[in-house]
């Protein structure tokens, strides 16, 4: 049974962040309909958690639940397609990429950036840990320590994932193909 206090906190914390939750769920799942299911699932989890949780940063707190709901949902519903966004081998390869290796031209990126579809495909092609850090930062506008909370990751790792994510994206966008 959910208490009235939990419901009141829910109303203050969850509905205001439904757009952020939906955006994150879309980028994690790659599908609009799936994102709706994920956000609803996350909202239910949040309501249950609010019975006891002490929430300091509401948006980061709820987005962490959304992220976990998305990962659970995807593991359950389509384990196969996880590999399309970068399987384990792919991830290992990119995590070891030297992001200091960046001698490409900004102009090529600016030209590619005109093509919205191309940019979205490039983001979708990033390995999930890099993609989620980038989305939380650029789309959701979270600060580093909020990203660290949402992804349950140390801040140092958040920083390197953002650097790697941007470097990987730059490389994809510079590619003439």
């Amino acid at each position: 049974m959910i208490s009235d206090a939990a419901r009141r906190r829910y109303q203050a914390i969850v509905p205001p962040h439904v757009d952020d939750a939906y955006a994150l769920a879309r980028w994690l799942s790659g599908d609009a309909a799936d994102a709706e299911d994920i956000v609803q699932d996350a909202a239910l989890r949040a309501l249950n958690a609010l019975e006891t949780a002490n929430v300091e940063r509401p948006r980061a707190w709820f987005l962490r639940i959304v992220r976990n709901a998305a990962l659970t949902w995807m593991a359950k519903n389509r384990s196969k397609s996880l590999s399309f966004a970068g399987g384990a081998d792919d991830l290992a390869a990119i995590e070891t990429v030297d992001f200091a290796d960046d001698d490409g031209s900004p102009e090529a990126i600016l030209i590619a950036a005109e093509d919205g579809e191309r940019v979205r495909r490039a983001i979708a092609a990033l390995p999930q840990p890099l993609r989620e850090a980038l989305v939380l930062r650029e789309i959701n506008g979270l600060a580093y320590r909020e990203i660290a909370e949402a992804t349950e990751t140390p801040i140092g790792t958040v920083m390197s994932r953002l650097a790697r994510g941007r470097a990987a994206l730059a490389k994809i966008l510079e590619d003439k193909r």
Partner: protein
Amino acid sequence: MSDSDPRQDQLLRLNAALDDELDAAHRVELERELERDPQLRASLRRLSAVREAVRRHGAAETAPAALRDAVAAIGRPKANGRRVPLSLAAAVAAGIVIGAAAQALLLSSRAADPVAAAMVADFARAGLSDRPFDVASSDRHTVKPWLVAHAPLGVEVADLADKGYPLAGGRIAVVGATPVPTLVYQRREHWIALTELPLSLGDRALGPREGTLDGFRLVRWADRERAYVAVSDIDAAELSAFAAAFRAAAAVGGGEAR
């Protein structure tokens, strides 16, 4: 991450500066490095271009209205642990929007029929409220004594669970200044409110009469002792079927068969 590589550290700081996460001292240091290092300036332009591209094209559209409604509804109180019907908020909103345009089809107008207006208002208010019931229970032996204790009128509580209308609870509605007992049944994700009225307030016609007010469906009928008004946002045929099921059950179970 490689802590020993100065170039990587420099790029981490560049990213942090871009994200406004670098403290003032490091920022000054980085600005000096930028002045004397053309390669670092090129890196900054690349990172800025990437960021611009992601912000411009990566933003998803806002959450669909249905999702927004569903997320808000999850936080509202539930009866018997059931989800609050998601359709209700939408139906209430629609009722408000089309209220002026919605002609009462078979029922007389709002002014001429204060009972129907009061029942629809009660139904809408309950849907928006934190407390859709005064007493939440699927057990008629719980609901009935509560209603009898709070409204000066006998109450017929029919068990319609096996017909697909489980009892969800009861509340007291008010018509004019008269408190009237109201049963709340559930049909899938919808509520059906059934109010029992003294004959002095009700519609004395014995046969059921259907109508629509502000987008909600109503069915009214009476027996020798009292009048009934059922209100819901389910469709007319379903509400008529509910009314028929209730009348049949009341006729058998209540010993008040006509």
